[in-house]
């Protein structure tokens, strides 16, 4: 019985780590078994970057509840400064042999610089909220892009871009592996943060800031913390990006890229980390395919897709006419259909996870919680009680 409980806990809390590790293993096996096309490993590399970006943005958008449109700005800080440090080290420091060390130093520098910028932007979040904060973050992203575009050729390469550092052998393969490891790191930090008392305070601020203050939560501290952590991971994604793309161009990190990441977070469901991971993967693949099909003048239509996805999502999630449809056909309902509940009292008792309980709304709590929210059970009546049900059986 205890083993079962532990198993439930593992599947609930650590399933996403396991899935990502499994995908990584499949990738390694594929890469060794068959000669992998360069485009495929590049796609994998893009996905790893996108996932880190989406997960870190979902911390701000989904959990703190503030709209940030400048996430690409933090990424470009990481890419440029991390890349530059790596370049300087390899050119002047004769560190070629220990490339991985250079990469780690670049990662740390990129993350710290991005975190510093996150701290500065976070200060504006103390005074502004909603649309106004979104405009400030948007401005931040654009300022960073303009600064790097107009930098001198010696410093950051200007409009031509910065020559990026690289590993010597089997480059893309190593980068993808490192990317997967970094996703695991991101998940570890952000999920554990959200599933602690700090995470509870952050979501309390999202739900009701005035009440959070009155309940003794230091809103200033928590908002700054969220911005700093989110920016640091964007910086890490930036360093990863800088190793894979030559040269690093400031134009890559424009407004459209920030929106792309936002679409990933919204598509995955606000406040759902696993959703962000899945949607980041799907959108990156879609983007890759579209780039192949839409060439020349048609390339501009690619950006149209994000707008379309956003509009459709907003309609789908909020239209009253679709309420019944949403409740009937969602991922959770599907999972429940597959996993028919057994009438085992050990599963019903206490705070154990209940797969047969269908919340009408997919809440952030389900990712965080050690106790699950009960809104509707499989019989369809509201406010069902676990104990009662266990007692009658």
């Amino acid at each position: 019985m205890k083993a079962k409980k532990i198993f439930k806990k593992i599947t609930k809390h650590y399933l996403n780590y396991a899935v990502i590790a499994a995908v990584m293993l499949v990738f390694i096996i594929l890469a060794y078994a068959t000669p992998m096309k360069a485009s495929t490993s590049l796609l994998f590399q893009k996905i790893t970057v996108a996932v880190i970006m989406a997960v870190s943005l979902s911390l701000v958008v989904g959990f703190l509840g503030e709209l940030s449109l400048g996430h690409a700005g933090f990424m470009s800080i990481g890419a440029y400064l991390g890349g530059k440090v790596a370049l300087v080290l390899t050119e002047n420091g004769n560190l070629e042999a220990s490339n991985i060390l250079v990469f780690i130093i670049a990662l740390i520098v990129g993350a710290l610089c991005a975190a510093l910028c996150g701290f500065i932007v976070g200060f504006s979040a103390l005074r502004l909220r909603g649309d106004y904060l979104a405009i400030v973050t948007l401005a931040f992203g654009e300022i960073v892009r303009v600064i790097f575009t107009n930098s001198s050729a010696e410093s950051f390469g200007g409009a031509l871009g910065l020559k990026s550092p690289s590993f010597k052998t089997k480059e893309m393969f190593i980068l993808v592996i490192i990317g997967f490891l970094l996703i695991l790191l991101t998940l570890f930090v952000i999920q554990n943060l959200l599933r602690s008392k700090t995470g509870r305070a952050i979501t309390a601020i999202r739900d009701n800031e005035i009440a959070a203050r009155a309940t003794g939560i230091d809103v200033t501290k928590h908002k700054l913390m969220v911005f700093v952590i989110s920016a640091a991971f964007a910086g890490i994604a930036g360093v990863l990006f800088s190793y894979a793309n030559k040269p690093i161009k400031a134009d890559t990190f424009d407004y459209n890229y920030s929106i792309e990441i936002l679409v990933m977070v919204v598509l995955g469901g606000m406040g759902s980390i696993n959703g962000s991971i899945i949607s980041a993967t799907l959108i990156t693949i879609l983007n890759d395919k579209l780039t192949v099909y839409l060439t020349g003048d048609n390339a501009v239509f690619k950006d149209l897709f994000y707008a379309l996805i956003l509009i459709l999502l907003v309609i789908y999630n909020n239209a009253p006419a679709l309420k019944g449809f949403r409740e009937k056909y969602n991922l959770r309902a599907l999972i429940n259909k597959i996993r028919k509940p057994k009438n085992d009292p050990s599963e019903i008792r206490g705070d154990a996870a209940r797969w047969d309980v269908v919340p009408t709304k997919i809440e952030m709590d389900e990712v965080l919680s050690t106790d699950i929210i009960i809104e509707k059970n499989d019989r369809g009546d509201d406010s069902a009680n676990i104990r009662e049900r266990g007692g009658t059986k």
Partner: protein
Amino acid sequence: MAKVIDGIKAFAKKHFPKKVNRITKESDFVLETENLGISFGGLKAVQNVNLKIKKNEIYGLVGPNGAGKTTVFNLLTGVYQPTEGTFFLCGEELRSLKQEKINHKGIARTFQNIRLFNNMSVVRNVMVGLHSQDEYKCTVIESVLRLPRHHKVEKAMRERAKELLDIFGLKEERNNLACNLPYGKQRKLEIARALATNPKLLLLDEPAAGMNPNETEDLMNTIKLIRDKFDMTILLIEHDLKFVSGLCDRITVLNFGTVLAEGTAQEALNDPEVVKAYIGN
């Protein structure tokens, strides 16, 4: 340029306030206000409010609409900074502290329109209230790395939250979303959350608003229970005069931001000035 510098100064003043010399004195009262007042521009919203609340007392703040009752609450919890006067909690001056600091010092409140964390479960709402207490301290790094302290603190917080919910009869609903609770229970949950911050003084802003007579009766018993069980001092705003006279040891009547009458409920409510303010001549 001067404007920019002023802006920076204002920002610095707000977020890095200078140390204010606050007096600490011996006091028999839990809450003591001295000529407390605030004016918004030329409008004096509240002036010369002198409350003296003894330990274990249920104190009522009564008055017609717009009399400034909620403003007094906002002054006491740091939402507004008083422009005149000051206030002491157990002899410790709390003027110009931030909201969360005032809460840490020991003043907790509920709101006139319920403000719960709607998308969180009931038990987690209460656990947010426990967040900043010393016995549940756990740094971010400890919880990210899942060190033993994190697990210990989480377990202790959950147990304590369950205990509190049990007192309010909410234990069975602890895993429901807060927004799915019925109105009366949401009120109770808000009080439970405020109590979770371990206050010395509890401020209740119209706890019986929108309740039917049965729920009001129930709430009166709950408030008495809180006072006895937690050894709590309570200051409450209420319009229902039956509720006030049945519950409060002493009351203060406010009108247009000034004190009309003080004393026991009977004395104060029979004061000719008070009758005039409520019913007219």
